[in-house]
């Protein structure tokens, strides 16, 4: 890189989820745990809102790790999986009120919004929350350390790529 180094971190850890909705809060909880270790090098943000808010949140970064809860129903709660952009881009939502990542990336791309060239997505399958509740259920709580480890593994390569 020959650019003058910017003071703004180039990488973002974005945790999506709502801590008031049980397991849905797993990513924000993980982000808080990772904050101490990475805050010097990586911007850490959390949001209960997805949809087009993602455009504002992701804009301006070179790299982003999105951590989120997943409720696909095709894996047991606590399962951690990495998704790629390609897992989503095939299916732009027909109902933009609930715009997802594909819509946001498609819109951002079309409008020339500077979105990260590298986006990695780590999800933990959860029990869909049925009521307002703070705290994680046993499966999500049990997988939290592994979730932190997997997220940390990705972030470490961004802090010092030569160590990879």
């Amino acid at each position: 890189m020959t650019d003058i180094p910017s003071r703004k971190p180039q990488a973002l850890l974005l945790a999506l989820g709502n801590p008031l909705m049980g397991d849905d809060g797993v990513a924000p909880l993980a982000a808080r745990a990772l904050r101490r270790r990475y805050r010097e090098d990586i911007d850490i943000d959390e949001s209960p809102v997805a949809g087009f808010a993602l455009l504002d949140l992701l804009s301006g970064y070179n790299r982003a790790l999105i951590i989120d809860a997943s409720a696909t129903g095709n894996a047991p709660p606590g399962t951690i999986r990495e998704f790629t952009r390609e897992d989503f881009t095939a299916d732009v939502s027909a109902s933009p009120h609930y715009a997802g990542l594909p819509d946001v990336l498609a819109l951002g791309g079309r409008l020339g919004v500077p979105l990260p060239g590298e986006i990695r997505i780590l999800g933990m399958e959860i029990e869909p929350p049925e009521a307002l509740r703070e705290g994680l259920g046993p499966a999500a709580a049990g997988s939290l350390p592994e979730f932190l480890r997997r997220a940390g593994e990705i972030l470490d390569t961004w802090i010092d790529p030569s160590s990879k």
Partner: protein
Amino acid sequence: MESVTQEAHTGTVARRVTIDPITRLEGHGKIDIFLDAGGEVERAYYQIPELRGFEVFCLGRPAEEMPQITSRICGVCPTAHHMAATKALDDLYHVDPPPTAKKIRELIYNAFMLEDHALHVYILGGPDFIVGPDAPKALRNVVGVIDKVGIDTGKKVIAMRKRLRELIAHLGGKVIHPVFGLPGGVAKGVTQDEIPALRQLADDALEFARFTLGVFKTIVLANEKYVSLITSEDFTHRTYSMGLVDAKNRVNFYDGMVRVTDPSGKEFAKFAPAKYLDVIAEHVEPWSYVKFCYLKQVGWKGFVDGAESGIYSVAPLARLNTSDGMATPEAQKAYEELVATLGGKPVHHTLANHWARVVEMIQAAEKLREIANDPLLTGKEIRTLPTEKPTVGVGIVEAPRGTLIHHYETDERGLITKANLIVATQNNAGRISMSVDKAAKGLIHGGVVNDGLLNKIEMAFRAYDPCNACATHSLPGQMPLTLRLRNVSGEVLRVIRR
């Protein structure tokens, strides 16, 4: 992408069809369609999800936490919840915020309204009119909208939303976690050196709202096919309308009395927020936990139109119907044009909500400009400190999608003993159900579910901009529409998903 899955089959002819329009099955909006023995639609319902556990979650918590908690439960309109809760706290602690605090709240609120409406007009409702209701499915998405309005317009929308959101964040804390509202006022004032940028933004916002009206006129109103769709019986229901009005019965998003007009446009009720339970009651369908709001004095007569039925409507069109006009001059002009074009007031064409939303954008922008030029805005007195014991508080605002009610009761230490929310979409649930029912009846015959059903049903309910009052959004982060055909015992006969 649409796939059809054969999940089970029984010989039963009476069936129930469920369209579950969101990733998370629990706590989200759902459409249930009951078929009779001949496979014709008996009745379709839109179910507003119940926010389960809300009252239990709140019990014993300090009332002051409510603006923060409630803004976090909803990922769609945190600012509306924050404001309704803050106003409920004013009432609970019997404090009247100083004029400057009210101006600051109203400034933030109008910025939010404009930003939220812009998103709907261009992005959320866009596929229905900007791309067109008959456009191929592959184009009926946000990319299709941008291709139709042009990339420069798309950039303009994104840039304006960004500036409005930055203003909200600057004055009120993060957009998704607002912190400005306190009982009796706001946390932070506006300084003189912030005014020039604020005025510039307000001017640009008004220009943007005018531009949006122009886009709407060019793309929608100039197209006779669209106009006849808007005015068609398929998308028309003659119901009561509800919304907040100011002292002159003009549209107000932040404050005022709640006014209800009947299907002929005559005032039926006008009440202070604290009296909402005298006017609004909830009906529970025997087959479901879902509650449908209706007007107590009229009574629940089922899912039917007319003055005899207590079903009412909220959201932009209802606000225009229930007021005598807009609070600002350019919005008033746009309002008069809408009313004249659509055959006079009240307008009962559901799809006219899209137009009403643009009219409201103009009012929100003009309000921004009015407040930005008001010397009261930079006053130093931003809070009246509560001195009385807390008792009961009700706060009502107009969320972009309609009347939003927060109601708290506390003990004398200010700890919550009772909490009740009626969100906009709950107010609208009866009428949305009627719209969905009409769409379903037009498309399902002899038990055959036309795949176009999903599209038309989406159009019917999307005009209301329903909010599912819940911030969960987990991956894959989009809204697959799932339509379930069930027999009377609840067994799934068939699933259509996209």
